[in-house]
């Protein structure tokens, strides 16, 4: 029984390690906390600290999901979203907007540009962000 449970856990870890996540976040404290949490949960995590590097990594690494901030240096989150959606290779990659801006106009703009969902950082725990990622990637 225990062996079976261990095997299931291992299988679960393997399926998450297959999933490559890209975090585009300029606040290094938040970027580090989120990436360390997701790595500890078994995901393969890449990080970028500005919009320009974010777009380059998205197009080069083809992640399974992108966690994207809006207020970013060089290119803001909306520009990143537009450029990633405009590329054939990345147009279907789920993009979770993770920001502290939360007015109707911010959310509307993000949804219009093709964000999969929109989370306000201060309202979400790391565990809840991870649950959302799993839900979108269909990981049980």
């Amino acid at each position, binding site marked *: 029984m225990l062996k079976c449970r261990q095997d299931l856990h291992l299988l679960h870890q393997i399926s998450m390690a297959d999933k490559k996540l890209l975090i585009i976040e300029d*606040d290094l*404290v*938040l970027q580090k*906390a*989120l990436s*360390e*949490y997701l790595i*500890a949960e078994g995901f393969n995590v890449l990080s970028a600290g500005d919009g320009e590097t974010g777009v380059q990594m998205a197009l080069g690494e083809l992640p399974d999901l992108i966690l994207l901030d809006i*207020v970013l240096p060089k290119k803001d989150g909306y520009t990143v979203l537009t450029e990633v959606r405009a590329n054939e290779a990345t147009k279907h990659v789920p993009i979770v907007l993770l*920001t*502290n*801006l*939360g*007015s*109707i*106009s*911010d*959310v*509307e703009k993000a*949804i219009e540009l093709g964000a999969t*969902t*929109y989370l*306000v*950082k*201060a*309202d979400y*725990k*790391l*565990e809840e962000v991870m649950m959302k990622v799993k839900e979108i990637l269909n990981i049980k």
Partner: protein
Amino acid sequence: MMLKLRQRLYDELNLKKQAADLGISVWQTPSFLFIVMGVIIISAMSGIYIVSTNYDSPEIVVISESLVVILLLTVGNSIIRTVEEVAKSNKMKSEFVSIASHQLKTPISEMKWQIELLLSKFTDGLSEKQLEIISEVSHSGEKMGRLINDLLDVARIDQGQLALINEEMNFCTMVDSAVMAQQSLAKASNVELIVTCNLKKLEVVVDRRRIAVVLDNLITNAIKYTDGKGKVEVIVEEADGFAQFCIRDNGVGIPRNEQSSLCQKFFRSNNSIKNETDGTGLGLYIAKNIVEQSGGKLWFKSIENVGSEFYFSLPLMTDEKKGLGILK
């Protein structure tokens, strides 16, 4: 209904009040200035008519017509300036809320995530006392976060910018989780908290987090204002196409003369001050606005020293509302 509509219309048209709220002074409202302009036009036309019939001089008619045009331009200019000033200040207020939201919430997020990371992944080597202190810091951070959220939500409600990210939810499950989360507070306050729900599923399309705020607010209020050895009962029903939530307590109740002000922002009942319960007076204002923006309504009945019943309803899901990520 008519009263509400009248108030709404009054608020929309009363740019002078809006300007005062924004901290700028304008001489008069555009609607008043339009009336003044109308009166001037009528008087001027009468004046020109009198001048042209009494004086057979084209110069005098031209001078009087020019004076009227100058007057009209001056009043028109005042109207435009008033509208521009208010629009500019509204834009500045909106930008301030946006910047404040980002700048205040970022350190809160940093603190919350760091503590969560520490408590969930790196507790090895920490003593019980250290864990207790970290946990208290975490609670204080959450309290600060809630306060900032409340203040920003009020600003967004006032600007009509409160975003709802709707998804399909089972209302019964939401109520069960909210009640479960408040059981420890009820126990500590010596209050019996029970739920009566004969339905398994009531599907609604709502912003899960916002409705959780409404539920938490009503449940904690009922517990806080029930003075020990009391009972708080939550009832969930279906009524005319709506999911209906009712919370009944046998607490201190609300004085009759304060009931009409209860859902106004920053209003705190004398009972809350007397009972030394903490709060900002924003919870019910925010709750009412969230419920109304979700298509429902919030109301209450209360008798002082007997107890209160708070209700809110949410429209049940219809076929056209199916689908995630609906924004309202």
